[in-house]
């Protein structure tokens, strides 16, 4: 939900299917100099994608059928890793955590819409200052963000619990208590991605022609009705875009868990860790801490299937609620 969001942005934006007019499709048959130029121009990006994305994915797919020695070298073990995977409690727990995190993370979307709507009010003073403030967490290093939140959440010396103690509440050990850890992480995740989502929604809102609202006002529609009948439907492409990104980002959550929850030995000693370990963190743990690379590859392939499936479902469902232009 943090670093991954910006990374995935371009891919998804290009992946949103623009309606292809029939006339365009016909022109594709005329392969000629124009097409060659086209291919030439996308070649650098295409090559980069193939070398740095596609090839590793294929390799990981292959490695998921192998077992690795402690210092590299691998042998084919067929479906063994997938068999272990199906019966592994840790995988199940981390999957459950990831899904919980993803669902809770979606709460950030209405929040972002709300803030965007407030920031979009025509006569708001200091609007650019607010926008900068909200966007600040997005451009801050995720690790720095996580470190600072770790201190804020400290059960004995953190600022949050200090403030709570002023009103007589004894706060928990936010990220070491199994009952609160997941929610504490979700809060940080929403906080970091809020600014980015607000910008997308703001852009979406500003693209809606003023005349619609004027017409609605003349017809007697109140602010709420205008928001529900005009803003929301016309914002739906942005909503769709942000929800796809949010889901993918949440499913790939790693950095927050790594810095705030711990890794390796420190993660083992954190009583809340089983409640916050995500699939990607588990993958990292298996690949680099316990050095079970083949098994780690199998875990990440399972995650790939999950992400592709969920994204496909989202694209299917969008036809029912997303209105383009």
């Amino acid at each position: 939900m943090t670093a991954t969001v910006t990374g995935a942005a371009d891919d998804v934006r290009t992946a949103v299917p623009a309606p292809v007019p029939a006339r365009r499709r016909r022109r594709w048959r005329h392969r000629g100099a124009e097409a060659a130029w086209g291919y030439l121009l996308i070649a650098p990006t295409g090559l980069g994608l193939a070398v740095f994305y596609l090839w590793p994915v294929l390799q990981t797919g292959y490695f998921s059928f192998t077992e690795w020695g402690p210092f590299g070298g691998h042998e084919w073990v067929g479906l063994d890793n997938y068999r272990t995977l199906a019966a592994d409690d840790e995988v199940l727990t981390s999957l459950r955590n990831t899904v919980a995190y993803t669902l809770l993370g979606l709460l950030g979307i209405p929040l972002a819409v709300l803030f965007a709507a407030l920031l979009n009010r025509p006569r708001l003073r200091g609007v650019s200052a607010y926008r900068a403030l909200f966007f600040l967490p997005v451009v801050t290093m995720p690790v720095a963000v996580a470190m600072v939140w770790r201190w804020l959440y400290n059960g004995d010396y953190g600022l949050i619990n200090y403030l709570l103690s002023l009103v007589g509440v004894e706060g928990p050990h936010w990220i070491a208590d199994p009952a609160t850890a997941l929610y504490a992480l979700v809060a940080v995740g929403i906080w970091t991605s809020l600014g980015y989502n607000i910008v997308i929604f703001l852009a979406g809102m500003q693209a809606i022609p003023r005349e619609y609202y004027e017409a609605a006002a003349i017809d007697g529609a109140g602010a709420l009705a205008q928001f529900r009948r005009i803003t929301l439907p016309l914002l739906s492409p942005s909503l769709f875009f942000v929800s796809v990104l949010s889901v993918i980002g949440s499913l790939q959550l790693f950095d927050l868990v790594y810095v705030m929850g711990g890794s390796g030995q420190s993660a083992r000693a954190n009583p809340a860790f089983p409640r916050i370990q995500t699939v990607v963190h588990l993958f990292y743990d298996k690949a680099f801490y316990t050095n079970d690379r083949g098994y780690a590859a199998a875990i990440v392939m399972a995650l790939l299937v999950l992400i592709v499936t969920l994204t496909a479902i989202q694209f299917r469902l969008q036809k029912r609620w997303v209105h383009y232009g």
Partner: protein
Amino acid sequence: MWKAVRVGAAAVLAAALAVTAAGCGSDEPAASDEKVTLSYAVWDKNQVPVMEEIAAAFTKDHPNITINVQLTPWADYWTKLRAAVTGGAAPDVFWMNGPNIQLYADNGVIMPLSDKIDQAKLDLTVYPKALVDLYTFEGKVYGLPKDFDTVGVWYNKELFDAAAVKYPADGWTWADFKAAAAKLSNPAKGVYAVGANLAGQEYYYNTIYQAGGNVISADGKKSGFDDPATVEGLRFWTDLIKNKQSPDLKTMTDTAPLQLFESGKLAMYWGGSWNVSEFGKNEYTKTRVDAAPLPTGVKQATIIHGLANVVSAKTKAPAQAWEFVKFLGSKPAADILGKKGPIPAYTGTQDAWLAANAQFKGKVFLDAVSYAVPYPVSRNTAAWNDEEFKQLTKAYTGEVTVEAAAKELATQMNALLAKE
């Protein structure tokens, strides 16, 4: 982009040439006109200055060899090292410890040094035998001992005085420790007697051996965690947490015991001789803390361990790397180390260490050698170490009983040992 590729290709070519060049002269001593930079990986930031000083002393004698000391914090050291080895980018020379030596030697990652030791007619009896044995695998020596460490109790005199408790001293027992712990704890103020850190070397390994138990059988084939005496050694710590004489795991996850001790929240800190540099520099601990031996249980015991310097099997400059490791294991290097670092392994250089840390009772750690127990290891120590943390966390939080956790741990550990 193309420029980058061309520069990259040139670098690869240059590296290839360097390999060929190094390959030609591999059996001869360092070619004198060849400039070489060796990477030297370490994990203790407190020791970076002294390692750099030793490296500078070496470069003075060997002007063509420069040493690049690379710090990777302990938490990531082994993860990064394994990844580097797998990717063919291991440092030329690096720190090795007991739990990892056999795995690295067994997989041919580090270079056996026995032939070179014979050629150079080095005398290995200048190091404690336990350490040479630790770094000997299948009859070959893989590392030259650098330092050694034992474990003791660091205590905060101010907190002891405030609670009117006698300072720990030679001959104190588990009963004394528990009585003191009860008086020193004041959970309402956030002050505890000790932090039951979930760590073997400084914590439960010591009490396990003090209780007459063991972590692993002498032949390294069988887990000792199902031994009732071992369970008593673990209960020592879980009882402290239960009685609120130690913070719970939640608190220690948020704030590490070392930080708690350094801010006056823990009266005692079980730590190593290596803590002298940290406690000597820290403004708070500098004047307030001192060291005492570990309390005696059924018997007296402390874990002894030491690091060694090893050479990567794939280094491009094996002759130079060996020269450096030889120097690191020599008396001049040990003399520098003793003044500013941990206890040097080279016999006879320990007095410098005592003198350099005179503000603490450093002799506690040297005396402990007489009853010390070697750090328990097997061929793939890391595998069952990980299982220790997973199972014991549940006992420390009180989720399961100590007996149940230890039993499960023994089962898992035996399964892992059978695979070695």
